[in-house]
């Protein structure tokens, strides 16, 4: 899966939770209050199911989940075979 495909899938998922459809790719989702704390685990479950990978203890870095860009990078690194 290409980076663009990952990004599109993540965007589509996040768009379900926010009012503003056009979220900049580098917008901090949590700091901007766009999503609530329940979303955090829903995002983890989505990443695991959609991209067939396991989010674990070592992955709990705010940077990994902060924005569409960082989530995309995180998935790309966790699943390098997707490329």
């Amino acid at each position, binding site marked *: 899966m290409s980076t663009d495909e990952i990004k599109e899938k993540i965007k589509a998922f996040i768009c379900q939770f926010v009012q503003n459809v056009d979220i900049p790719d580098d917008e901090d989702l949590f700091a901007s209050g766009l999503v609530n704390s*329940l979303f955090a*685990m829903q995002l983890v*479950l989505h990443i695991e*199911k959609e991209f067939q990978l396991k989010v674990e203890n070592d992955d709990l870095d705010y940077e990994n989940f902060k924005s569409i860009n960082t989530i995309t990078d995180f998935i790309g690194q966790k699943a390098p075979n997707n490329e």
Partner: protein
Amino acid sequence: MNLELTPEQIESRKSFSDFVDEYIAPVADQYDRNEETPIELIKRLGEQGFLGAFIPEEYGGRGMDMVTAGLLCEEIGSGSASLLSLLTVNGMVSQSILKWGTNAQKEHWLPKLATGEKVAAFGVTEPNIGSDAKSVETTAELSGNSYIINGRKKWISYGQVADLFLILTQCDGKPTTFLIERDTPGFSTTPITGLLGFRSAMLAELHIEKCRVPEENLVGKPGFGFSHVTNVALDHGRYCVGWGCLGLAEACLQASLSYTSERKQFGTNLRGHQLIQEMIADMITNIKATRLLCYHAAYLKEAGDPGMIMETSIMKYFASRMVNKIANDAVQIHGAHGCGSEYSVQRYLRDAKIMEIIEGSSQMQQIIIAKSGYMNFRLEKRKK
């Protein structure tokens, strides 16, 4: 779509039901009056693997599928809601470790929690903090390569006997969770008695005074204690409670069917009175509706679908409201007998109320369910 249980699930349910009939139902009222769960019963649950229902086999658990584990919660809940809460809190901690613990934590604790060698309890609620969980006042401060934890936790199910506690703290203002063992210097518990319900769930207040815990006891990372760790625990708790409400409601129904078949007033059995039939009909219908919600939540949980969080919330909300109506009607049907100690329905009613408060009150569920409804509405509008 297939809503039928598999032959294996039917067989499991029978074995759970047999266990409840033999070891729980006959003594649940007595334990309720004594405000105690005997250690032998906890050990027996462990030997059966019931405490490890949700723990994978590689860590010594039973690794049950979500429907089978739900059926276990249902059956235990029909016998004793207090005892169900042991499965719930032990599961909340073990699921948090399973999802966010280190490999060392998983390997050390999960086999023990699966077998009842050790029992875990979940410490979020405090004297000043209930629903607003991420604002807990218990603090953790880094000191060398360990943390110093200070605070109080209240209303902790099985806090009187648990060996291990998962504690939500504020660490530099970030919600952070730690494992604290009972024998940690500075840690003590005080029993809470005289409760409305869950009387044999051995609730306690936890006193955490300058408890030094190694950094290896951190579960997840600082800042992720509420959004990730506590939410995993709460989701699991809601799942167990929802199924437990189903079992408790079934117990109310069975008691009501039995009583109305025997009790005679105005020359006929109560079952012949239409106003009684109305209550029985509503019980049956609401139980069936709850069961479908439980199955749906189980299906999504088994699939690891992100939708499971909302569906579990909806299921817990509906089930806990439903069982309050049913338990209330069960007492009404039993009349004065229902208020006395001879029948279990008064315990069912008291326990039902607790179900509507724990692991997110009905009001907290309403908020997130309504928000989700508006989110879906917005999404549908966009699609058009």
